[in-house]
């Protein structure tokens, strides 16, 4: 019985240990980067600098949380940058026309715009049987095109937006900015659902093997639609945060963001094969990418290196995933051969 207990206790530990190393790696990299930068320039850890980093992370982390959910189901959502643009422009136009509207209405409108966009993606992927890469590449163009034809070269300036809307980005409770609080709640909440709730585990199952999930009686269609709606809605939420933080919104808002979001997710340890990785890992990935950007500026390294480093990090992250996958496969094979 002790033996049974021991093996029972041992297996989850070794497996979760492997998974944990992935997030642990990011935390260590993050810590090393912060220490090195802070030693060479203590200003890096000043309140204002930390605040800026967290504010810059917030928008990326919110989108990365949604993207992680989609990638875990073995899909991808490339349209998030365009959804951010559409939602930011919608909200900015709405708020400049009706300055009396409370902030919560703006947030709900942004979530709704994003959710509809996500629904379109999900329906085309699931019911149109079109691969997610193709669908979201197509809607990347379409949503951006809609925003451009609507805006027609105009932009909404900060002075046209109501004061309470702009203050939202800088306001804070107990010293924590609203933007950061929202990002933490989103990343934490989605992580919790993905980790502990049935729907989350079903999404992981779908990503591990779509046909097996279907055979196991999981409602794949409903879950996939849900995943795309979450990704769209969170990109929409990022849109209102973007509008509040930057004040000036034109049709190009969020152009090319999809690359950063996918980078954050991949660096955060969510494998593009689906079925593995965590949402809070993706959040950490977003934080790491942002810290790198700030650290380069503080260390006085040519800022042009930033994108190259991001690229190298993505490659490093995929290699690490591959290594872990190979090791797991090998240990599984070994265990099978003993039976």
């Amino acid at each position, binding site marked *: 019985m002790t033996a049974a207990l021991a093996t029972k206790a041992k297996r989850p530990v070794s497996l979760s240990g492997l998974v944990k190393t992935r997030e642990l790696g990011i935390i260590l990299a993050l810590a090393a980067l912060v220490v090195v930068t802070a030693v060479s320039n203590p200003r890096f850890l000043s309140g204002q600098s930390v605040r800026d980093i967290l504010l810059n992370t917030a928008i990326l982390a919110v989108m990365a949380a949604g993207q992680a959910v989609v990638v875990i189901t073995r899909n*991808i959502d490339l349209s998030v940058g365009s959804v951010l643009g559409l939602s930011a422009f919608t909200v900015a136009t709405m708020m400049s026309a009706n300055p009396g509207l409370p902030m919560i209405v703006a947030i709900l409108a942004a979530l709704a715009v994003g959710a509809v966009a996500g629904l379109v993606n999900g329906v*085309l992927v699931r019911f*149109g*049987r*079109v*691969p997610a*890469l*193709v*669908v979201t*590449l*197509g*809607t*990347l*163009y*379409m*949503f*951006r*095109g*809609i925003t*451009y*034809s609507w805006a*027609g*070269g105009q932009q909404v300036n900060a002075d046209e937006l109501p004061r309470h809307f702009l203050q939202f980005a800088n306001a804070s409770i107990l010293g924590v900015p609203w933007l950061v609080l929202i990002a933490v709640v989103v990343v934490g909440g989605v992580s919790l659902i993905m980790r502990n709730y049935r729907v989350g585990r079903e999404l992981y199952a779908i990503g591990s093997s779509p046909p097996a999930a279907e055979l196991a009686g999981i409602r794949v269609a409903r879950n996939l639609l849900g995943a795309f709606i979450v990704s769209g809605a969170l990109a929409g939420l990022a849109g209102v945060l973007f509008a509040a933080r930057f004040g000036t919104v034109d*049709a190009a808002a969020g152009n*090319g963001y999809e*690359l950063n979001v*996918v*980078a954050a997710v*991949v660096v955060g340890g969510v494998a*593009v*094969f689906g079925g593995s990785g965590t949402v809070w890992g993706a959040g950490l990935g977003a934080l790491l990418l942002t810290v790198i950007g700030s650290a380069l500026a503080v260390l006085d390294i*040519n800022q*042009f*290196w*930033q*994108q*190259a*480093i*991001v*690229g*190298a990090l*993505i*490659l490093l992250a*995929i*290699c690490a995933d*591959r290594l872990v996958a190979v090791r797991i496969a090998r240990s599984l094979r070994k265990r099978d051969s003993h039976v």
Partner: protein
Amino acid sequence: MSEVRRRLASWDSIIILLTVLVLVTASFGVPNFGTGRNFTFLVLDLLPILLVALPMTFIIVTGEIDLSVASTLGLTSSLMGWFWNNGLSIELIIPLCVLVGAVLGAFNGFLVTGLGLPSLAVTIGTLALYRGLAFVVLGDGAVADFPWNYTGWVTGTIGGGAVPNVLILIVALALIFGVVLHATPFGRSLFAIGANAQAAHFSGIRVARTKFWLYVVSGAVAGLVGVLWTLRYSSARADNGSGLELAVVAAVLLGGVSIFGGRGSLPGVLAGVVLLAALQNALRLQDVSGQALNIVTGALLVLSVLLPNIATSIRASWHRRRLRQAAAH
């Protein structure tokens, strides 16, 4: 008979017909579209997308993807400026840039085939890496003083007429790629790899080696396009061609190549490229913003996969109904 009907109903014939239709309608309906001068611009505009789309078709047919092409273009363009600033001769720079492109492609190929990493993630990584290196090489400056006889050749036309010099290059490369894909054992092996890589491996096709060389070719062509792009605008910049990868993938898929691999044709892809470029050109002549065209591009891209899927499921349900009726009788 049924073979002919199947051909006519296939997506590549539809897209070819659609392209001819757009070209004819635009020539008659849009003022200035049918002029020789506009033809020159049209060819120059579609040059980068078309050339990059040729190896991209091969890669997607084998079931992989290369999203780093536009960044390879940018990095070779940057390097071209840097080499030129360092006094290398243009005759040396051009082959050197193509070689650099091939090396960048080989790096992709090694990561995908040597380490077995997913090509989508790898080339998103090198998309960022190569573009970042392009900025490291040249910053946000530009190099513009390239010799006029080279820049003039790229923008010039044969004998001063309407046919641009670069059309020779386009036709030659399109012919080579077309013949290789559709009339050689190597071309057939690409379809076999895309349809089922494992089966292809067991039938003696060197899957990994083939894919590796496709990435090398893709990089080399992207390097060549980087040179042409730089010469056409007479400006080497790190952000040259940024975002082009999405347009290329869109054109290839629009041309009827399956994103899962194993299916597609080069004439379809050429039609897809021409269709997108002609639409953009015609709308611009009518003062419609190019950004609004994004809606059309995106919709066409989704429809290019959605419509065949719908057609297949309708055909399947007809077939089922006929079987049921036969059973009832």
